[in-house]
């Protein structure tokens, strides 16, 4: 009965995300990635997005930031690194599935090898032993898989707490949660344990990530227009991630660069 309820919740998550996708995609024209300016993305909901951006800044300033500061003080860097490696290793199954779905056998093999080595030699993932052996980490998610399959990103959205995203990526994160085996694991003795673990995992991930992103967040807030800066970096970074960091064709890369003489004296 409990298992059925868990499945219901997961399905509900996916349904909510799907509705969001349908709603937002229907409301605007398709937004193909702009190779001339990878930083540009359609933002028809800018008013809403700016409000969410301001809300997130508030949460960061008054809650997450201070909490991360305390976490950083209380937890030495060595421990934070171990926690970080451990949490990252837990994502390996989801990354593996997405590697396969994107038809990337070599990357899928890397992920598989990393997970095996880190869980065993790396002691339950606490050490990134695979990295020392030269097998580097890469991240994947279902949003990227959808992009590889040709699905349009949809308009730029800023979600409360979650931050910048798009309907495609939002839907993707719902699917990732459904793929994640930890979503479905149960403990016979204690039916609530898996929920507590999920919450703990979420909180630790957020704190660890916030500490790691400290400098970037400071830099972002020092920009003349932080909202625009974040939107642009999200858009261009996402496209680079989807390409798996592969360089674009150089002859095309510089084709649409702007002219500097246009506004000369």
């Amino acid at each position, binding site marked *: 009965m409990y298992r059925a309820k868990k499945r219901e919740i997961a399905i509900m998550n996916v349904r909510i995300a799907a509705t969001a996708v349908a709603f937002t995609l229907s409301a605007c024209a398709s937004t193909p990635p702009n190779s001339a300016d990878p*930083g540009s993305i359609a933002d028809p909901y800018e008013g809403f997005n700016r409000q969410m951006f301001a809300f997130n800044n508030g949460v960061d300033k008054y809650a997450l930031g201070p909490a991360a500061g305390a976490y950083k003080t209380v937890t030495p860097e060595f421990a934070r690194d171990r926690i970080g490696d451990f949490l990252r290793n837990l994502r390996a199954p989801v990354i593996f599935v997405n590697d396969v779905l994107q038809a990337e056998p070599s990357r899928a093999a890397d992920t598989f090898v990393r997970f095996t080595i880190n869980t065993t030699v790396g002691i339950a993932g606490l050490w990134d032993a695979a990295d020392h052996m030269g097998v580097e980490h890469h991240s994947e998610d279902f949003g990227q898989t959808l992009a590889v399959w040709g699905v349009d990103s949809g308009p730029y959205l800023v979600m409360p707490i979650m931050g910048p995203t798009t309907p495609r990526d939002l839907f993707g994160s719902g699917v990732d949660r459904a793929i994640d085996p930890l979503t479905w694991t149960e403990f016979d003795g204690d039916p609530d344990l898996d929920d507590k673990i999920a919450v703990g995992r979420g909180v630790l991930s957020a704190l660890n990530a916030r500490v790691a992103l400290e400098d970037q967040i400071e830099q972002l807030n*020092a920009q*003349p227009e932080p909202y625009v800066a974040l939107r642009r970096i999200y858009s261009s970074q996402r*496209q*680079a991630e989807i390409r798996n960091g592969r360089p674009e064709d150089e002859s095309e890369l510089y084709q649409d660069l702007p002219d500097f*003489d246009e506004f000369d004296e």
Partner: protein
Amino acid sequence: MKRLVTPAIALTALAALALPAAADAKTEAYVQKNASEVLASLNDPSLNADERTQKFNAYMDEFTDMKAVANFAIGKYARRFTETELAEYQKVFREYALAVYENELDAYRGEAVVVKDSVDRSDTDSIVNTVIRRDDGKDMDVRWRVLLRNGQYQVVDVALNLDGNLIWLGIEQRAQFLALLDRTNGSAQALIDKIEGMTQKLESEKRT
């Protein structure tokens, strides 16, 4: 008649081909020499902070076309500002740009700039690919947009390659400045104030 025309056409075609190649080698040499000089100027232990800034600024003024970069950063508004507003903005922008570059490039002081290759968009417009080696082993892929203006080479934009994401700093700056100006109805003063605030913050973070 026909026999004379063909070699003439061939010669002009060859000359056109030769020009970009010459531009390639020259722009590469230009970036190699000057980028290294700029980084070296930040590494001179005999200079105190102010002297270092002065030397760095002098090199940067020669190396980059500050006015062109400033005008580019505000796009169409360059024509909408009054003459005094434009002059004030250019002055403030220059100070800001110098402060940004000094803070950012300081991390690479003393490092070698290695030119890899270059791409010519036209006779007067090239992009030079360089690598700046860092202490922690991570090499920075830095690309310089070099224009030939009035017989002089000058850098007008710099791009950093972050995990396959090529970010042109001038373009990013322009996107934000235009957003700010659109939001404030083209107010030059709002932009000038904003830039001055950012410069002050940067100067307080400068290495002493």
